């Protein structure tokens, strides 16, 4: 992958689309310093800081705690057999912000997030004893409790049922769109309709570089989709923000 460069504004949700192996996860992990690029550097100019426009920060110069205060990450899979209370898992999201004691505010922030994602009943269940979709939501709750400026989600809706898919995406959107904060989200996702419905911009990766970047209606054209994914589809506009992609490839 080479010469990827794009800009996100605050209060914006950006979806990354691309085929399997396109490098979506890799891109997200590089931003997060989970991976370091073999060659080359990654620079960011955070929209949430008040640095001058021209100032680029090299990711590898940042401290991990620093990064985790400003970015939170939901991985594609979390497998664990460690029996930890769901409440404590979400509380881990507060970790970058505390030095020693857990304050009541932290606890309340966690409780609030749990309620927000309808996880009240699971608060004192063990994380390794809940279902796949429940885990996914707990990890998302942890990411939200982390209160970052940039959310990095790798397939947040996989494993979620119909209703939870919608609710989670709505929650995320609501948090991002809150004008009091300058937050944004970068979401790697395969469900093209969810991407179209809930994101402001779409980053379409193809062959290791950006093929298109812009609002869904511009990026998700029949030609682009055919070129990237190799499927035929029809696109219909549902209302002015929202298009729907229907894959036509017959049974």
């Amino acid at each position, binding site marked *: 992958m080479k010469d990827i460069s794009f800009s996100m504004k605050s209060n914006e949700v950006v979806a990354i689309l691309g085929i399997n192996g396109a490098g979506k996860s890799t891109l997200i*992990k590089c931003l*997060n*310093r*989970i991976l370091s690029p073999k060659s080359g550097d990654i620079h960011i100019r955070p929209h949430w800081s008040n640095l001058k426009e021209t100032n680029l920060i090299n990711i590898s110069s940042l401290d*991990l*705690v620093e*990064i*985790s*205060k400003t*970015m*939170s*990450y939901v*991985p594609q899979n*979390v497998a*664990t057999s*460690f*029996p*930890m209370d769901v*409440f*404590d*898992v979400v509380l*881990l*999201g507060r*970790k*970058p912000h505390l030095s*020693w004691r857990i304050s*009541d505010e932290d*606890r*309340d922030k*966690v*409780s*609030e997030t*749990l*309620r927000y994602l309808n996880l*009240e009943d699971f*608060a*004192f269940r063990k*994380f390794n004893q809940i279902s796949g979709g429940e885990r996914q939501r707990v990890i998302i709750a942890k990411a939200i409790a*982390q209160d970052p400026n940039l959310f*990095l989600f790798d397939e947040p809706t996989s494993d979620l049922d119909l209703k939870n898919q919608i609710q989670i995406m709505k929650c995320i959107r609501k948090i991002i769109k809150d004008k009091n904060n300058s937050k944004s989200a970068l979401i790697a996702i395969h469900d093209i309709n969810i991407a179209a419905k809930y994101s402001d911009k779409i980053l379409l990766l193809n062959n290791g570089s950006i093929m298109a970047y812009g609002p869904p209606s511009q990026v998700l054209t029949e030609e682009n989709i055919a070129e990237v994914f190799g499927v035929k589809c029809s696109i219909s506009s549902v209302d002015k923000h929202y298009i729907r992609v229907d894959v036509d490839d017959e049974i």
Partner: protein
Amino acid sequence: MDSISLQHVEKGKYQLLIILGLAVFTLLSAVFALGLGSSSNLDMVTSWKIVISDTKKFFLNIDTVADNLWYNLTACISSSSCEDRSLLHGIEREGTNIQNAIIWDWRFPRILTAIVGGIALAVAGALMQGCLGNPLVSPLTLGVASGAALGAAFAIVLGFTILSIPELAIVANAFFFSLVVVTIIIQLGKIRSISAESYILVGIAITFICGAIVSTMQYFATDAQLSQLAHWSFGSLSRPSGGNVILMGLILASLLPTALKWSWDLNTLSMGGDEFAISTGVNPSKIRKNILIVSALMTSIVIAFTGLIGFVGLAAPHMSRLIVGNDFRKLIPCSGLFGAFLMIFADTLGRTLFAPIVIPVGVMLSIIGGPFFMYLLLRRGGHH
């Protein structure tokens, strides 16, 4: 506050209560142990009377105590033939000289060593098992023990010492070499990769290399040297003097808060592995390195004085886990207290059960701790 938060606070309080209870219990057993011994002219009541009266006098005459301490320090530095004064020198005492010596010079440092050693080894064990994610790790694996043995061998066989005070030469060597070996392991482990397994493998290799060097030295050692080496490595709580153990305690106390603070990071690491940790602001390689260094420090300061005591560091964390669960915020303090309690219990039983026959603390720990560990394991297994 939110009702869920309240529930969480409640849970936390309950856990704190357990920990406090364990602490009080450990303290009580220490006081009880202070009154037990094989001496025929010193029963438990007399012992406690002396302990209480001396403690009172210590605090009432704190200026005299300070004077004596000052005298010890200055005299020891200025002249080589430094004759330590007791801290209550010049104050009329309750017990006879022999009684005072037994209580304050034998039992007190011994019990204090049990507490400090138990806490240090068990906490180091919990930290290392956590950060390497391996239930077979103990503070004595990964080079600390073999480094200490190497240091002792250097001092005893080659006469190479880093400190020239004869009483402390072996101890200092053991301490210093175990840190050196651990540093080497950490450096080499990092070259290879930062994973836990990498540290373990490098640790195995270095342990064998140290073992080979010690064996080679033993070939050139005299009988006396061999016996000294064997005796050094054999675990016993009787070696450190009161001064030594207070020093050990201070070092331990300065390291414990860090150890407790790492419980968050260990929880994160155990929860989701390296990637999850990084995204939560925990640097796995840094944490592993720091934990290894601190546990090595804690362990080597203890075993340099006491020799090798294996049970506490390996089993106390597992036993605590079976009692209080996996959460490191509880696990670390509980392991420490549990380790201290086990050590006091085993050592006191060992020196009083068949007095004047002393059963070594390591043997006693296995005799008491082994079956108890088994009981805990199977109890849990029942309703699992």
